[in-house]
Structures are given as structure tokens and as C-alpha cells.
């Protein structure tokens, strides 16, 4: 799942990727602009609806939902 402006970078609100995926595998599977953006420390990651404290420790299996969350908009 791609939220906010990350959906624009990914070209769609959701992408389907083949699992299993760790952080390096996820980045390799994403479009280049999005792979670069997700490294920004302000962008958070959730796995199956739960925020990851450390996105670099991502371990997703086939069928899991990964959400890429940019900073919320405020104002």
C-alpha cells in the first residue's frame, strides 16, 4: 500500500510484489523513484497494519501487506 505522495511515485495506490521480502528486497522491487524516497527517515513502514519501529528489519512473507507511509499532512 502506498499512501500520500508515495502513491504518485509508485504510479498506483497499491503494488503487488512477490514475497518473501526483506528491506533490500523491497527496495529492489520498487520503482526507482519510490525506492529512493522510502529511505527518507520521515517515511514509516507498517507490516500488516502494525508500524515497524525499524523499517530496515522488515521481514514480509507472501500475502503480507506492507504500507509505505509518508509524513502526515498537518495544517
Amino acid at each position: 500500500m502506498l499512501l500520500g505522495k508515495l502513491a504518485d511515485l509508485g504510479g498506483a495506490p497499491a503494488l503487488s510484489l512477490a514475497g518473501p521480502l526483506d528491506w533490500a528486497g523491497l527496495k529492489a522491487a520498487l520503482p526507482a523513484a519510490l525506492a529512493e524516497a522510502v529511505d527518507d527517515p520521515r517515511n514509516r513502514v507498517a507490516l500488516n497494519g502494525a508500524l515497524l519501529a525499524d523499517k530496515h528489519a522488515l521481514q514480509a512473507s507472501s500475502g503480507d501487506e506492507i504500507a509505505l507511509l509518508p509524513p502526515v499532512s498537518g495544517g
Partner: protein
Amino acid sequence: MRDIRLLTQMFIPGTLIGPFTQANPGLGGVCTFVGEVRYDEGVEALELTHYEPLTLPGMHELADRAFDRFTLMGLLMVHRVGQMRPGEPIVCVSAAALHRRDAIDAVDFCMDHLKSAAWFWKRERRAGEWHWIEPRAQDAVDLARWQS
């Protein structure tokens, strides 16, 4: 009385506030804030997206914190998602308490957190083009007021 909701359709705040007030008999005060989509220059529409597994649970956690922090009888917290036009209500927070300060401060607390820490992403359409709204420095200042 606790009523926390995400709505996908336009709502009329008065239809929520009346029943909410009635549902808290014996209250000493009720404070309500309604936020509407501003008529900013050139803005045709505002769209809020959310992430289902985080957004509503996050609002419930915020309500828990408000109940812990203030002496409340009831809390109503309703937020729109989807596309809205200028003038449409986007958020309504109402707090009922025995004493006014708890009601007023609880609404202020909830609004500062909804605006800057809740899981919503906003974009606005100007001249037919969508533009994402970025976080503002003022949001962090508003949140810092409650970190004591």
C-alpha cells in the same frame, strides 16, 4: 459517552452534537470544535486519504489519552475522509465534562493531535491539478504544547 468515527460522506455537525450532549446527562459544560474546508484562493477540492489499519485505531488511542489526561464525561471525535469542497465540515470534536476547563482543553488537545499526528494525508486541487499538503512547522509547535 464515547463516539469515535471516520466518515466517508458529508455530515452535519449539529446532528451529532445534539444527541452527544443529550447522552451526557448532568454535564457541567460541553465544548465543540468544527473544522471546515477553508475557501483558500483557487482551491476547488480537498481530499483526505487514510490507512484503515492505523487511522481509526490511532483516533481511539488519542481518545484514551484524552480520557486519561482530562476529567471527561464524554468525547465525540468525528473525521471525514474522501473528497470535500470548501465549506464542508472536515472534523468535529466535542467534549462533555463537569467543568469547562476539562472540556475546552480536551478539545484543544484532540485537535492539535488530529491535525499533526493522526494518519491522514491531504491534497488539494487547484486549477484541476492535485497538490499534496506538506507538514508545517506550526504543527510541531502545536503538539509540543502538550508534552509536559
